[in-house]
């Protein structure tokens, strides 16, 4: 399979995202189309990853795990980067849209990150001999995930929407500090984990399957963020309509 096929799909997805933002009428259709394409591509990814791609030179068939593990972690990074961007955006110009986008991207990022780490643990058992090791990459990834879980917990514990938005934007920026640390941990410290995977450092067939995995999960990331954003916006609206918790005290005469 030439690498141009997943690249073309990525281009198609970028066009869909732009149209979704620019043309509000298409917002009820494009996320469904993206999810449907993602489902078909996921089925194909299972075939490509398990049967089409050649075995890895040292890890053999266990190396096939990387075609799903690596794209899952990439999705987590993309979602967390979006969260940091929205957090900065909210602090510069207060908007419920950026606040809702920050919430949705954090939750989607935690989902992809948690599943990606679980896959990494399964991969580590046959390759490292252990399910888990206190390695710099694994520690920094755990800290990153926990910081975003804390971000989501802070949001659910804070009642006042405006305070919640401001505080969570600050925590989102603080959590964003863990992103470069996690990314560069394999280079900064002696890590058992291999350095970053890239389509340029592997065989062409492997690279195209890895790109296919990236495109597949991006087709899911888009509808996930759109639908989670709608939930966040509905919650914001409901919170605005709520009466104050305490009735105003009558002023003393």
């Amino acid at each position, binding site marked *: 399979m030439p690498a141009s096929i997943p690249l073309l799909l990525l281009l198609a997805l970028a066009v869909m995202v732009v149209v979704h933002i620019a043309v509000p009428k298409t917002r009820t259709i494009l996320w469904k189309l993206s999810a449907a394409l993602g489902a078909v591509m996921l089925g194909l990814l299972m075939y490509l990853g398990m049967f089409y791609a050649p075995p890895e030179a040292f890890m053999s068939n266990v190396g096939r795990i990387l075609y799903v593990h690596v794209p*899952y972690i990439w999705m987590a990074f993309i979602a967390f980067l979006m969260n940091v961007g929205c957090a900065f955006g909210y602090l510069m110009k207060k908007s419920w849209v950026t606040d809702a986008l920050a919430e949705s991207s954090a939750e989607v990022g935690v989902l992809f990150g948690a599943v990606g780490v679980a896959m990494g643990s*399964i991969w580590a058992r046959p390759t490292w001999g252990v399910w888990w090791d206190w390695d*710099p990459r694994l520690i920094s990834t755990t800290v990153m995930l926990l910081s975003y879980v804390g971000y989501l917990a802070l949001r659910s514990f804070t009642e006042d929407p405006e305070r919640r938005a401001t505080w969570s934007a600050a925590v989102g920026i603080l959590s964003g500090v863990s992103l470069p640390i996690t990314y560069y941990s394999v280079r900064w410290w002696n890590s058992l984990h291999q350095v970053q995977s890239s389509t340029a450092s592997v065989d062409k067939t492997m690279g195209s399957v890895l790109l296919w995995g990236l495109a597949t999960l991006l087709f899911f990331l888009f509808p996930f963020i759109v639908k989670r954003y709608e939930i966040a916006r509905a919650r914001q609206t409901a919170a605005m309509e709520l009466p104050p918790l305490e009735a105003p005290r009558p002023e003393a005469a």
Partner: protein
Amino acid sequence: MRALFAGLLVAASLAFADIAPFPEKPPPAVEPAPAIVEPAPAVEPAPAPAPAPLHPMGIEKAVGSGVIQGGWEYVYACYALAVIGVLGYGASLFVRRPKEQAS
């Protein structure tokens, strides 16, 4: 407020920087102990390892020696997790959809 955020950012950076290991001192040189020569015990031939389960499509034929053999159960588990992850989260979004969309 901005100064507070800047202070928190610096504090977080310092906290993460603390994870960096300090350079270790080289261990002191140890004199080797005198070698004790003992007759080697008789070694029984180890039983041949059980062959790894073959994949139905015979992909193992392409795998050379000196690499991890088998491991398909881990591959299946990860791909199942990949499907469960997206389908499960999709289902959770459907369950939590706003009321006006549900009606």
